[in-house]
């Protein structure tokens, strides 16, 4: 299995997409953070808190912007599975490793470090930008041990997104359909249904289970232990679906 995970990571490293997506993630997060810090806050106390960053709690709130990296990790996860079909490399993959569940499992494992990397980098960007921003103004940013913990939580959300991206990509096989479908699900469906039927919010995979690990988590969501179990259940369900579809599919 370790060999197969190495092969999947080599597949990623030998193409440019992962670095492009990571770059986009960093750039987008940095731009939003700069926009927040540079904007005129007006009278809104939340906006003013983000603008001034006078407490550690304000910094943790700013860190939530780094959660956007999970969306890019989700896209990368999808491409890890679907590019095999888009470029026709699934044939050589399964000639080399005919036991398809092993390949699917290796892809999911390979998504863990790459997803975590996206989250850790994306989560660090707001802090680094804020440090640089306020250093230029001759001010420091309040930090304590909860900040790295918050970044780790963004890493967890992001690796979950990457793993689920692989699973959904393996099920759907069509790259565009999988990416568009997942983005619509994350950005539209979960938000709308959660808004209309609040009791459903905590059960959704991204805004619900993974969302419980955000500093912005609402009271409607599960506690983190329960949310962690729910995330694990979604991963197992996604793995099982991906294995079933791959095993029953002609390549």
């Amino acid at each position, binding site marked *: 299995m370790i060999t197969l995970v190495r*092969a999947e990571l080599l597949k990623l490293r030998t*193409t440019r997409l992962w670095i492009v997506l990571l770059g986009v993630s960093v750039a987008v997060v940095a731009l939003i953070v700069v926009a927040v810090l540079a904007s005129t806050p007006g009278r809104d106390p939340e906006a003013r808190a983000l603008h001034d960053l006078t407490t550690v709690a304000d910094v943790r709130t700013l860190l939530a912007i780094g959660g956007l990296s999970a969306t890019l990790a989700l896209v990368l996860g999808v491409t890890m599975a679907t590019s095999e079909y888009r470029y026709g*490399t699934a044939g050589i993959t399964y*000639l*080399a490793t005919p036991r398809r569940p092993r390949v699917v499992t290796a892809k999911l494992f390979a998504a863990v470090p790459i997803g975590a990397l996206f989250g850790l980098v994306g989560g660090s960007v707001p802090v680094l930008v804020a440090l640089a921003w306020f250093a230029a103004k001759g001010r420091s940013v309040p930090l304590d041990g909860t900040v790295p913990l918050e970044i780790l939580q963004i890493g967890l959300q992001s690796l979950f997104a990457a793993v689920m991206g692989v699973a959904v990509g393996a099920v759907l096989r069509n790259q565009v359909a999988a990416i568009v479908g997942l983005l619509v699900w994350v950005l539209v469906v979960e938000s709308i249904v959660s808004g209309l039927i609040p009791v459903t919010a905590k059960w959704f995979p991204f805004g619900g289970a993974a969302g419980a690990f955000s500093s912005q988590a609402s009271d409607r969501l599960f506690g983190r232990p329960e949310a962690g179990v729910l995330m694990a259940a979604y991963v197992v369900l996604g793995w099982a679906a991906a294995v079933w579809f791959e095993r029953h599919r002609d390549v």
Partner: protein
Amino acid sequence: MDDRPALEIRSLTKRYGDTVAVQDLSFAVPHGSVTGFLGPNGAGKTTTMRVLLGLAAPTQGETFVLGSPYVALERPLGRVGASLELTGFHPGRTARNHLRVVAIQGGLGTGGVDRVLEATGMTTFASGRVGKFSLGMKQRLALSAALLGEPEVLVLDEPANGLDPAGVAWLRSFLRAFAAKGGAVLISSHILAEVAEVADRVVVIDRGCMVHEGPTGDLTAEGSVVIVRSPDAARLRPVLEAEGATVTDAEGALEVSGLPIERVGELAARDGLILHELRARANTLEQAFFSLTEPQAGPGAPPELPEAIPRSDLP
């Protein structure tokens, strides 16, 4: 060496919905031989190979590679090298990295990558991205991947497509040497001449069904005709027809099919008929191929060409 054939297909049927891609196909590929797998485009060659290699599930029947289903082989790339028409490459990956990925996936280690790049003449292009490769270069790269594990069996789907003449010559000599060392090769093509020069045996399929299997020479021998030139042609003709031959006139000679040349000579001698010429004319490979895989009239058949263009239609 194992007594079992290197590759074996038993009563294979593959359907996609209502479409029958392969129908009750059986044949085997022995060790130490090159078997040509022939048929027109869409005959079912690639489908058969995909089922053989575990990439598609059979509707009925079984396939064996070195005595086992392909999916049951441990580290299959070390035993079977395959290059399929539908096998693709990531366009952003270099040739060397493509092979490194395949080698690691196949549990082979990356030590053989440079060896196969050199063997297929791809060393110069090793750092080039596959998206910029010509079809011929992609074929060479696919062959490189097939050779990575130094396999004892090769399954190659249209490997000469896009190769330049030097590449085709290299491929032929390589396959001959591979078989001479005991390797087994199944090579598909829709171009007969490509395979005829290298294959010991041929399997011809059409519309998913077997239409011929045997030594390559038999393909040309079957359907061959005997040319007889005789001043006694008018008397010879009924003698031959009485023996079951089909006789037609051909530019002052008789064209006899359905009787071996020896029997034609014996019958003429028996009746004291003079012969000026007696020779066998082997069917060309193309003739044999077309006679075996004649297109059926129907909605899917290509339009027939007119035998002659009326003079009035000429400009």
